[in-house]
């Protein structure tokens, strides 16, 4: 069955989401991945937004985390304080899977969403952390969406906005952060994970038709590709649900 790259990304990410996850979502494809998981295999998982909306009935795709569409038929409508406290909280936070994106990523999964160039006279200014750094700081597991490009998978971030594993296996502990950190990076080519011991990124799986060499060609640093396996394409059922239930207006797909 035919599918687009965006559909492959959304389904690949959705497969990471489990029935007992509380999923912290941003806009765009991350929201779509969470909606897909909920409709496909994880009916009890909960989607929640930093704006304070928990478990909305998402009948239409929200175009921002403050979209009124996240406020309808929720478990509760709070505010930012409640949302972030839920993640910093030891009990509820332990269940949260954060989904993040960024302009740059390094081999330890640290993210830059602030500037390209010098912070004090930037070449390019981005939106800034928003809740990204908060989520990356608090939750035990996160999933990162990236476009696989050399200028995005960099040796040295221009600005470290959101903490991944920082400088390696002991980085988060030394900095005073809770244990955990990013568990995978879902790109337009592949899925990367982090080695249990070194906390360095490695290639875990390639999309159908993508070779490990192609992945490496799109990165400014080298990663271990020895563990790479081919990833399954979206099934007909997955695609049907994604297209018909999650984004029938095709606002994101």
């Amino acid at each position: 069955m035919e599918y687009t790259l965006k559909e492959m990304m959304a389904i690949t990410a959705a497969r990471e989401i489990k029935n007992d996850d509380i999923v912290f979502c941003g806009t765009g494809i991350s929201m779509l991945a969470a909606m897909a998981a909920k409709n496909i295999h994880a009916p009890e998982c909960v989607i929640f937004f930093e704006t304070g909306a928990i478990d909305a009935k998402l009948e239409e795709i929200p175009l921002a985390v403050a979209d009124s569409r996240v406020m309808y038929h929720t478990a509760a409508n709070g505010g930012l304080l409640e949302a972030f406290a839920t993640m910093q909280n030891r009990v509820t936070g332990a269940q949260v899977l954060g989904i993040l994106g960024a302009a740059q990523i390094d081999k330890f999964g640290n993210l830059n969403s602030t500037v390209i160039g010098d912070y004090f006279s930037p070449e390019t200014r981005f939106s800034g952390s928003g809740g990204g750094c908060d989520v990356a700081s608090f939750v035990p597991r996160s999933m990162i969406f990236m476009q696989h490009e050399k200028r995005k998978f960099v040796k040295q971030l221009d600005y470290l906005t959101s903490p991944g594993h920082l400088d390696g296996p002991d980085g988060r502990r030394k900095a005073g952060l809770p244990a955990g950190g990013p568990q995978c990076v879902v790109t337009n080519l592949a899925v990367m994970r982090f080695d249990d011991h070194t906390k360095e990124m490695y290639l875990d799986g390639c999309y159908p038709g993508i070779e490990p060499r192609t992945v490496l060609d799109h990165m400014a640093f080298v990663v271990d590709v020895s563990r790479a396996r081919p990833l399954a394409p979206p099934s007909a059922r997955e695609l049907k649900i994604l297209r018909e239930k999650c984004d029938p207006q095709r606002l994101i797909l």
Partner: protein
Amino acid sequence: MTRLKKDKVMNLKAAVSAFVRDGCHLSIGGFTLNRNPMAAVYEIIRQNIKKLHLYVHSNGQGVDELIGAGCVARIEVAYGGTGKFAATCIRFRKAVEQGAIQIEDYTNYQMTLRFLAGAMGVPFLPTRSSLGTDIIAKWGFSREIRRAEPGLPDHKLVVMDNPFPGWGDTDQVVLVPAICPDVTIIHVHEADRRGNCRMQGLTFADVEQAKAARHVIVTCERLAGDDELRHHSDQNQIPFIHVDAVVPVPYGAYPTACYRYYDYDPVYLKDYAGAAKNDERYAAYLARLRATADHQALLDGVGPARLAMIQADPTTGYAVDLDRR
């Protein structure tokens, strides 16, 4: 003191000119494309108020318009974006890249905690967010600027060892300094003459932003009867003791959304983003905006058909099947 008086209704022109002065420290409510106090933002632009020190978390559209109109000298911010319409706010981005405004970066939770600290009357609050990052390492406002200005805390953030060793499974925390704006402006669904406020849907950080401020202007979709909000007062988030001015402004959040009243206007936001990319077109946008006498005139220009299109569905609270491409 005037905060206990029974009638605080003012018109928007008078409220803005009474409380929002050149150089004042201002915060505005809402989040990206929802419930920004846009009528007040446009009035600030019409009055050409300058050199504002702005405190926001993720207030996309309002921030971008204030910056675009040249009202802002400094901003403390977590996120400058308007969802799908501008992943990074366009005039914000230009202003930072050109060094036209000074910027200090925090996270959304940190900004919210900073407002909460102001509301609670404490100098700081703790969090674990941003440990090990450049949010802590890099200061947009230098030590020199901070020391020279009594309106700024001496430190951007302070990292501290947990004084209760091991407690809460935490070795270190980040302390974020309180914000007490001179003025906070929020847009709410209903308010009464004395200033009791009721919002529907998410409240974002509006409550904390309001309670942290020295002065609070509330614009509202609807002025409630004197007794009305006293029934089911559990639903009132801000009691009148925190409010200075109540300004009824229907569509006061337009072109951003107001849950259960109206949706954001995708046409306006797309046109805005288009204009913002081009200095000449943006100048024309601003000239048209400044030529409007008030928010009603701006709405008249938009026309009843567009407003009808964004009317909220009574069940879901948004405009079902609105064309948002």
